[in-house]
């Protein structure tokens, strides 16, 4: 590794920290008003974070998922919604990088994402599919060089603010529900007719409204690989790792507040152990567990990356599913511990120890792809897959 290569990640994290500071400053307002974290996303653009994952050949920085996960955590400590917008954008970019390389239109589009700092949205949810993103009802219609799509997209996070949307559909009018493709539509190639407004318990700034999507674009904008491969080989790992990194950031900020609370109490009366001290130690252990699971998944992904067989193996899917289940459940336990430590000052809004936003945001983790659905898929795989129980493999 050259010296430049070793120094770059430090500079990258400095950029991320500047964005996180801006995100943190507006986090309470974003949450209270349920509005898009515009200041944080503007800062991501000015720090040029939206194109970092794109290969250098297309004008990006070729940054690995490891560093993107670290940025997700850093942002998650400041504002969960801004961090989740960043994570969702990067998950879409990962599909382009993994499955659009070699395709002329998609390579040119990646250059635009990096150059113009375009924000990518996702439309994988559809009314009537029961939350299973591996099924579509709508079908893309290819007519010569043009493709058309209409979709009842019940959730498109930051749909109003996205510069382009990656959307799933059946591959053609006669295709089975699971025979899907993903297509990139640019903002001037679609209309969004809002059907549902996002007024939710937490993650309020993601503005995950519902829309009827109608688009028309050149057919070459359809990603060349089946969506089944994209889902298994880039989306699954990136989604579960980057979401978990955001959630870890939320829990880590809650923990920092709880620890500060106990330290302040200890300084006031050094002779007596503050009542919450033992719980801080418990939460510390739980937090370390979440961190370790993410690191283990990142290591597993680094080993499998670029190897289609490893990425589509059941062992890989089970491991990524397990990460999602564990981190989404454990952050709730951690933040609840922090709430018990901070007491009424944690429960109240507007104190240095407030945890209401953290707790509400964290509750989304079990639901964004329902844990029950993921456990159902894992349990099916475990009927045939024998889990590797060695320690180091």
């Amino acid at each position: 590794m050259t010296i430049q290569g070793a120094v770059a990640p430090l500079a990258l994290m400095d950029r991320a920290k500047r964005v996180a500071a801006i995100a943190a400053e507006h986090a309470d307002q974003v949450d209270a008003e349920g509005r898009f974290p515009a200041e944080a996303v503007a800062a991501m653009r000015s720090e040029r974070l939206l194109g970092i994952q794109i290969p250098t050949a297309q004008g990006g920085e070729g940054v690995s998922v490891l560093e993107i996960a670290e940025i997700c955590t850093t942002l998650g400590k400041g504002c969960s919604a801004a961090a989740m917008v960043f994570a969702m954008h990067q998950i879409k970019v990962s599909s382009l990088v993994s499955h659009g390389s070699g395709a002329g239109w998609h390579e040119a589009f990646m250059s635009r994402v990096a150059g113009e700092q375009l924000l990518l949205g996702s439309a994988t949810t559809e009314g009537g599919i029961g939350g299973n993103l591996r099924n579509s009802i709508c079908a893309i219609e290819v007519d010569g060089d043009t493709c058309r799509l209409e979709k009842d997209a019940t959730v498109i996070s930051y749909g109003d603010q996205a510069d382009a949307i990656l959307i799933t559909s059946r591959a053609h009018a006669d295709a089975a529900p699971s025979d899907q493709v993903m297509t990139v539509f640019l903002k001037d190639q679609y209309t969004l007719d809002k059907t549902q407004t996002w007024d939710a318990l937490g993650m309020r700034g993601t503005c995950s409204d519902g829309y009827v999507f109608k688009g028309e674009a050149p057919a070459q904008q359809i990603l060349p690989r089946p969506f089944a491969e994209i889902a298994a080989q880039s989306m699954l790992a990136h989604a579960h790792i980057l979401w978990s990194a955001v959630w870890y950031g939320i829990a880590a900020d809650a923990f920092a507040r709880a620890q500060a609370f106990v330290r302040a109490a200890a300084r006031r009366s050094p002779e007596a152990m503050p009542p919450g001290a033992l719980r801080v130690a418990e939460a510390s252990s739980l937090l370390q567990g979440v961190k370790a699971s993410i690191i283990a998944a990142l290591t597993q992904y680094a080993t499998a990356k670029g190897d289609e067989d490893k990425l589509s193996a059941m062992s890989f899917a089970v491991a990524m599913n397990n990460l999602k289940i564990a981190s989404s459940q454990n952050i709730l336990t951690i933040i609840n511990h922090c709430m018990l430590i901070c007491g009424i000052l944690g429960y109240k809004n507007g104190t240095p120890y407030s945890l209401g936003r953290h707790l509400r945001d964290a509750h989304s983790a079990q639901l964004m792809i329902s844990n029950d659905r993921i456990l159902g898929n894992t349990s099916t795989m475990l009927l045939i897959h024998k889990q590797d129980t060695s320690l180091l493999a």
Partner: protein
Amino acid sequence: MATADTIRTILAQHGKLPVDAATLGEDSDLYAAGLSSFASVQLMLAIEEEFDIEFPENLLNRKTFSTIATIVEVVTELSKDQQAA
């Protein structure tokens, strides 16, 4: 003995396909025909039971179950290996 016809019969029983399995060629893409990941596991279990074999971890992937021809090939190989063992 795994033949295209025996696999097709198991596919008809367990594949939950929206199309008639009898219409599928040996090289037809089963995922394009609507084989879901859930049904593919049921298919694997039924094949393990029928041929008294176990799929090793490295074959539990999308590619192995992508066509009738690849399934026949893999099952024939495994039957030979696992009977010899």
